[in-house]
Each structure stands twice: as C-alpha cells, then as structure tokens.
C-alpha cells in the first residue's frame, strides 16, 4: 500500500506492506533510527513519536495508519541549526544515561510544555508515566523538563 507522511517537515511517499509497524517504517524505510524499539507491545514507550503534535507509540500503529499525517521524531527536534530547549535541558540536567529512552522522553516533554507551559512535578510525572527509563530513576528527567519550561522556546546553542 502507498503511504504518504510528512516527517520532520519533509514529505515521504513509500509502498509498504499493510502490516508494517510505523516504528519499522521510520527506522527501516526512512532510516530514522533515533526512534527505538524496546518491547513492541506498547509497554515501554521508547518508540514514542509525535503524531500531529500528540505523543503516540509508533509500535502500536501500522505505517499505513499514519497516511496523510505529520510526524515529529527526535531527528526533527533541532530546528534551523538550533537545539530544542528540551535537548539542551536533558544534557544540562543529566536527564539521560544510556540514551535509549531519551528521544521519546524529550518528545513527551515537548508535547507537554506545548499544552501546559509550566507543569508541576506531579503533572510531569503523570505525563511521563507511559515511558519507562531504567537508568535515571526519572529524577533528572523530571528536573530537565522543569528546567526546559523555564527556557525560551526553540532558542539555544
């Protein structure tokens, strides 16, 4: 089946088997390997991307279901040569260790701040509860998102 999607602002059209998962389409067909696979049963969230701005688990969707939609992956966070404030915050606050859950965590954080520019810790923890991390105990991920909320949107070194 033919599928057309916009990923990080670029249009892509490809012929895919109907059963191909969106995460495999992103990783294998488009070569965007920043979106990871941790469980393929929607339990861990490391495959999270933004679908029209909303976090979804890309292992729980077929690629063809994304037809006509706009997707953001970690590769799309940096804009015009500038890091997203979430990227800066994760490094500054030591919000990552092995880095495997990090792309998903940053995207969830970004989507949250778009809806709620100044979330408190409870709100952040609730928002992140679909995404597992085994390294950080979530402490510095929460801290990073809180820090990002204090930074001007979009602009960073």
């Amino acid at each position, binding site marked *: 089946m033919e599928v057309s999607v916009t990923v990080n602002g670029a249009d892509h059209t490809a012929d895919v088997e109907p059963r191909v998962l969106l995460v495999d389409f992103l990783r294998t067909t488009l070569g965007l390997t920043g979106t990871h696979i941790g469980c393929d049963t929607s339990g*861990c969230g490391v495959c999270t991307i933004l679908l029209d701005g909303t976090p979804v688990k890309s292992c729980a969707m077929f690629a063809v279901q994304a037809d006509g939609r706009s997707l953001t992956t970690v590769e799309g966070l940096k804009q015009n040569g500038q890091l997203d404030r979430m990227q800066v915050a994760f490094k500054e606050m030591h919000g990552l260790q092995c880095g495997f859950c990090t792309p998903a965590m940053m995207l969830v954080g970004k989507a949250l701040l778009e809806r709620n520019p100044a979330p408190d810790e409870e709100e952040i923890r609730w928002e992140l509860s679909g995404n597992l991390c085994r390294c950080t105990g979530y402490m510095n991920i929460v801290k990073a998102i809180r820090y990002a909320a204090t930074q001007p949107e979009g602009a960073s070194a």
Partner: protein
Amino acid sequence: MTTTTGAPSATTAEIGGIGHSIKRKEDDRFIHGQGRYLDDHVLPGMLHLALLRSPLPHARIVKIDTSEAEALPGVVACVTGEALAAHGLAWMPTLSGDTQAVLATDKVRFQGQEVVGVVAESPYVAWDALELIDVEYDALPTIIDPKAALEDGAALIRDDKEGQTDNSCYQWEAGDKATTDQAFAAADKVVSIDTHYPRSHPAPLETCGCIADLDPVTGQATIYMTSQAPHAIRTLFAMVAGLPEENIRVISPDIGGGFGNKVPIYPGYVVATAASLLIGKPVKWVETRTENLISTGFARDYHMHAELALKNDGQMLGLKVDMVSDNGAFYADAQPSKFKAGLFHVCTGSYNFPAAHVVTKGAYTNKAPGGVAYRCSFRITEAAYLIERLVQNAAYELGIDPAELRTKNFIRPDQFPYHSPTGFVYDSGDYDAALQKALDAIGYAGIAKEKEEARKEGKLVGVGISSFTEAVGAGPSKDYDIAGIKMFDSAELRVHPTGKAILKLGSRHQGQGHETTYAQIVASELGIPAADITVREGDTDNTPYGLGTYGSRSTPTSGAAAAVIARQLREKSRKIAAHLLEASEDDLDWEPGKFVVKGAPDRSVTIQDVALAAYTNYPDGTEPGLEGVHYYDPPNLTYPFGSYAAVIEIDEETGQWKTRRMVAVDDCGVRINPMIVEGQLHGGLAEGFAMSSMQFITFDEDGNCIGSNFTDYLIPTSWETPRFELGETVTPCPHHPIGAKGVGESATVGSPAAWVNAVIDALAPTGVRNIDMPVTPARVWEAMQGAKAG
C-alpha cells in the same frame, strides 16, 4: 606495582578534572537521536534471524519438520540443533563452567528454550516462517521448585551431562563451621529468617542482539554485539566456534542499558554467527522483549535461611547461612571460578562477626538459565539484603533499636583493613558516620511521633534502615576470573602532537558516563582539559584487552589504569619539559597542565607544549611520542558502603504502601563527577524500589513463565517511583590510584532491604517479621490478616 596512590591535583573548571560536575560528553549524540545502537546498524546484504522457542518447560524432542518454513519465499535457511551438531556447535560453554544448548537436540529444559533458527531476508518473513515449523514434543515432568529439584527421585533435568545423577549444579561453602557452632553455643539468643530473593530480570530497554558478519573470502569475522564485555566475548568465540582470534573483531556499539543482562553469551549470538559462516552473508538477530524476559539473563532467585547468634546486649557472635539458588536449566551465571555463588559470602555485611559459615547449594530447574549479577557485583545484592533484613529482625527480638544494634556491631574505622570471617579484606570505611547522617536526614528521632500521628489517619508508618557494604571492582586476578580469563583491566592513552588525547579502554559503558569520567581522570593527572580527551571503548580491534563493565568494576580497574598510564606519561613529560626549559627534572614543579621551574614562575611549559615536543623536539635518547598502555591488576576489591533510610506508610484498609521519604547516604570514595554519581544512585534506587515493590518473574506449576512482557513484568514508571534524597560521606579507597570505589550498583544493592524493613517495621508490633519481595499490596494485606488471626 607502578601505582602510587594519592589525592588527585585539583584542577580548574576549564580543565574539568576529578570533582567537577561537567556535562556529559556522550550526550550530544544521544540528544540528537544519533546514538548508534545495535539494531541501528544495517550491513549490505544483511539477513535476519528469528528463533523458534519451546512452548514446554521440559520435553523430549521427537521430530522437527522445517520443510514448510524453508519453502516460504524469502526464507534463506532453517538451522536446527542437529545441523549445528555437525559443526560441533549444538552446545556451548557457559561463563560459569557449565554447558548450555545453543539449539536443542535431545530435549528442551525450559519454556522459551531455543529450538530452531530461521534466517530470512526480512525479520517479518523470519517470524512468519516460525509459524510453519512443526516440532513434536514428548512432555516430561516439570520441576519449578529448586528445593524439590534437590530431593531424591526428582526427574533428572541435565541427563546430557556425563556422571550427573541429580539436579545439583554446585555446592559451595565459606567461613568456618566449627568456630561458628561454638559461637552459637555461647549465644543468649538466636534469631533466624527465611526469605526468598525473587527471580528478577535486568530488562534494559534495549534488548540483546548481534550482527555476525563473516567474510567468506578473507575469513574475517566482525561481530556487532550488545556486550558489556567485548574482549572476553572475542576470546570465548574463538574457543567456542574455533575461529582464529586474530580474525575476530567484536564491536559493542552504544548500549541501551545493560545491568548484567549483556554479559553472557546467548544462543542467538552463536546461531547468528554460525548462520553467517554457513551462508556467507551478515546475519542480524535482535530479540523481542518477550524473548529477553523469558530466556536471557535472569537474576537472583535465592531461597535463603540465616541465623544470627547474639548476646542479650546485642553483641553479634556468629552468622549461619544456608541458601538454595535456583539456577534454571543451565548454570549460566557469570561467576569467578572460585566462587560458585559469586560474592554472596560477603553476607556478614558491615558487622564485626567473629565467626560465620555460609553453605550454598545450586539447583537445576526447568526455568530459564541466568543468575546474572543484575546491577550488582556477583550476588552481593542477595547478601546485603539478607543480613540487613536479619539484623532488623534481631533488633525486634532483643528489644533494641535497629539503628543502635547496627552501631554497636559495625566494623570500626580503626579495624581496617578488616579480615572478614568468610575471607574478604575490607579496605576502608566509617559505617557509623554514614548511618548517623542518614538518621539525621530522615529525622529518625521524630519517627515515633510520626507513627503515632499517622495512626490517627489509618496509616501505619514504618522506618527501615539498610547499612550495606559491597565488594566490587574485581580482580585482583589471583582470585577473580571469568571463564579462566583473569580479571584486570586496561587503558591506552595517546597524547597527540597538538595536545589533544585519546583514551582507549577494555571496559564498555552502557550509560555510566565513561566518556566523561575517564576523560576527567586523565584531565586531573595530565592537565589536558577533559573536553580535549576522547574516550573510546567497545571495539576489540581498537582498544586494549579488558574484561568489561559490570560488577562496578570499571572505575576500580579501567579508571585506575587510566590514572596510572596518565601518571607514566606525566613522568615522561617531565623529561621533555626539562629539555625544553633547560632545567633539571628535579627543579620542575608540576601544576595541573604545566611544568614550572622552581623559584621562576615565569619559566614554564604547558602539557600541550610538551606534547608537541614529544613529536618534534625531544631530548636525545628519549623514545619519541607520548603514548602508552597500562594493564591494571587491582591489589584488592573495593568496598563502597552506605546507609539508607526509608519511611513508608501502609493504608490499613488496602495494604497499599507508599514511600514518604527515602534518604540514601553513600560512600563510594572519591567522586569523579558528582553529577554522574548522583545519576547512578537515582537509577539504582529506582531499580531497588522496583524489586522491593513489584518487579519479579514467577512461574505457574506447569512451568509457564509469568512475567514475559511489560504488562506482567512490572517496571515502575515515573508515577510510582518515589523521590530520592541523597547524602554522602567520603572515605577514599586506600589502594586505588585516585581513591575511588565504584558506585553504579550501590543503590540497587543497598536499597531493597531499606524498603522492605520499613514495611516490616510498620507491621512489627503485630509480630510480622517477613514478607518476601516483591512486597505487593496483596502480600502486605495477607500479612496483616495473618497477624490479626494471630
């Protein structure tokens, strides 16, 4: 020994040496999504391997028919145990001296065991083909309980092993029985505990996998693998597969968490390698989460009985431990050869025991093999948990405050080096300082009042302490090995003419921050800014030999090697500096980053000047260059310690409990990068909380694994995970070049007992003394009802 110990020079923020919380160098690629993990690698012509696994835990294989699968378009080959047997590869050695089936030939011994491999052009086709394979099994009796496995007449699981007549996989003891019996004879009181440290799984978010690329023309084997120990894997592959070691290159790329899961060799690695060898194309194998949880690297599963002999005043006289470990169908722990139950015999903990005796028995059962050190140094987690639970129960029985009982029996600072009754030589510590700090932070003096007030709201409050000591950082090589390979580690440092450097090591990080912390060690020793030092690990062609990263051994071994080689290059630099300054070496003072002529502060050369001169203007008779390699064999283990205090509350109506406070005071010696140390502790605490409260793998009586996905195998999310408060004391390791001890595992080792002790403390007035982990609300509820029923 070329090592000299001593405090590192203080460096400026610009140099960013030891003690600076500099931001991590490795983060840049990760925040861009440019980490390169195993599954991100695609090689030209690469094929995909999927494994058919046994649905039964114990059964004879009657027939395997792969004809339909082979006929499926896109399938390249089906590999059976029989086919591997023709090449001598149906069985492989484990890292603890046993054998393990690569693909089953005779029978299957656990649910999820590897039976057939399918190699296909895409993973989807490989998975389709698995459905078309017909395997006929003849079911055999299943043994799930390790104690039942050791009973006379139990069905024999390992009938493949010559001379094996029962399900015992090892018996091992430590300490001295006679003196321990005497100690018990002199006791006023003996307190005992029976508890199970449940089967758990490290479950890093990246599963295990490999890409085997064997070039049929050159014979070169390049194996990309999620391995915490790539050098050891290379050697073992040479031994297992008979490949010439000079032709094997193991590349361990970015690793999405390891926690011990990525130490062993798994059948999938061997099947992929054999398939690539036979087919002549690269073959990728990446396990699914379910495969990860049901077949690779489980941890713990110790059934422990312990007795503590005391005087009425609380003085500890002796410890007896009798433990049965459930090793699954193959003894596939990664333990040093001398120590069958790893370092479990460190179970005398932080206490001055005159006598101890530890008996351990390992059993084969129809469960997945493993026994990996999940975020701990060879079974130390089980040991620390056992003694800390037992000490608290002893306090209740004697009517002594649990903190006071600990203080009374701690090994005192003036007793170090301390020879433990089971054979360890503890290097340093000040246990009471850490405990008092934790008690102060948690407000221990006010807990009684807090309990009383909570009671009015239907909450039962408890406080739990854990004052643990670890033994980490193996070697020394005289005592520690993996499959015969001695446990040392290495660092190669090359300072380039422009004064920038590259450091290559035998360890392999999985998120610990080595690219930053190792650079900081060299920055402190040589004064080259950490920003100018690139750290490389994981490629056996380009790094010196080492045993890898697990057991909190990287800083104690590779980190030490980095410091030593940097010091050696500094000494060489001194000669070159003397030449440049036309001064004698003795007349030069070292300040971080430069040599200065004594009494003439304006006459100096920087390390960068020296580096250039090492290639352009060196004194006659001096070997050119500024490079070197050091292999560091530690003189002893290191002994990090800490005291944790948790306050929890239980809802009387439901048994639900939650953490009010968790204070963790750690002493890991000198902290290289405090920010990274704290991150390690946060992660360890979260995993300790996970094991205490929800995370475990169990089996039904038919041998079905319960916990084969993230719906059944519960990992705490940000919502359940409590907040942590950290504190520190610093007792430098006396034998480590920079005084560091290792920290990656402290919190996983130390924290479970604090949480469980807190729950027990809340229920202690009703006589409850044990709830096995995970302490689920249901188990708490059951204990409360049992206590009511009396």
